[in-house]
């Protein structure tokens, strides 16, 4: 199932609705990298609240999404990693590296508001 991407202000919000196949994840990666340019977005939020498993492929793809979006000049924050999922990721030895994370959508938006304002040359 293709992940819907909403545009809100300068941000893209990808809200994952169900378990994703590998193809769905790769599609999300490509969609976000493309739409960040189309809408001239300054950041993307990927909401993974409903994901009940994040295995090596999912983690690798989320890292790729973050890196690609950074190369496109925008920021990424992953929100909603569930405590059980975090536990399994740590056990498995999976890390998101320098990818930004936040507790939930609200925290993710707050984080980006702070980040993108600080980064703007003519901010305020």
């Amino acid at each position, binding site marked *: 199932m293709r992940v819907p991407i909403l545009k809100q202000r300068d941000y893209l919000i990808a809200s994952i609705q169900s*378990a*994703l*196949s*590998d*193809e769905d994840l790769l599609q999300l990666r490509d969609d976000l990298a493309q739409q960040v340019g189309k809408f001239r977005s300054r950041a993307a939020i990927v909401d993974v609240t409903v994901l*009940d*498993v*994040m*295995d*090596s*492929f999912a983690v*690798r793809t989320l890292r790729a999404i973050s890196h690609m979006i950074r190369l496109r000049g925008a920021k990424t924050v992953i929100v909603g990693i*569930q*405590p*059980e*999922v975090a*536990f*399994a*990721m740590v*056990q*498995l*030895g*999976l890390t998101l590296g320098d990818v930004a994370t936040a507790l939930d959508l609200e925290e993710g938006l707050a984080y980006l508001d702070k980040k993108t304002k600080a980064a703007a040359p003519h901010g305020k």
Partner: protein
Amino acid sequence: MASEGEPRPTSRGEAVVRIASAADIVIARQRGRELAAGLGFSRSDQTVIATAISELARNILEYATVGDIVLAEAQRGARAGLVIVARDRGPGIADIGQALQDGYSTGRGLGIGLPGVRRLMDEFDIASEVGKGTRVTGRKWLP
């Protein structure tokens, strides 16, 4: 209209999920989570089990292209739990010790597969013969 990936119940109460495409990985781990939930595993353990299944199924696809994930209730004395068997007729593993080292991989993976799965399970065993295939068995016991 059962697809290739649909679990097939067998006489011993096992579920066999054929792994032949990426979509089958999702089916296998969802089936594993359901089974774990039915056996009384906590949400945290259900997630651990589903994640282990996902990695094992991924290994099958990557190295052997096709294989099975077998899920069943485990019983030993007073202990109850769940057993996951990942079996394939792929190329096999020449050096199992090496395959279990963190950071070692001959495929495109990140080398976290088998050692990672071992950390997720209570018991872990690999039998493999080059040219014949591989059988990975993992058990998780109820606390």
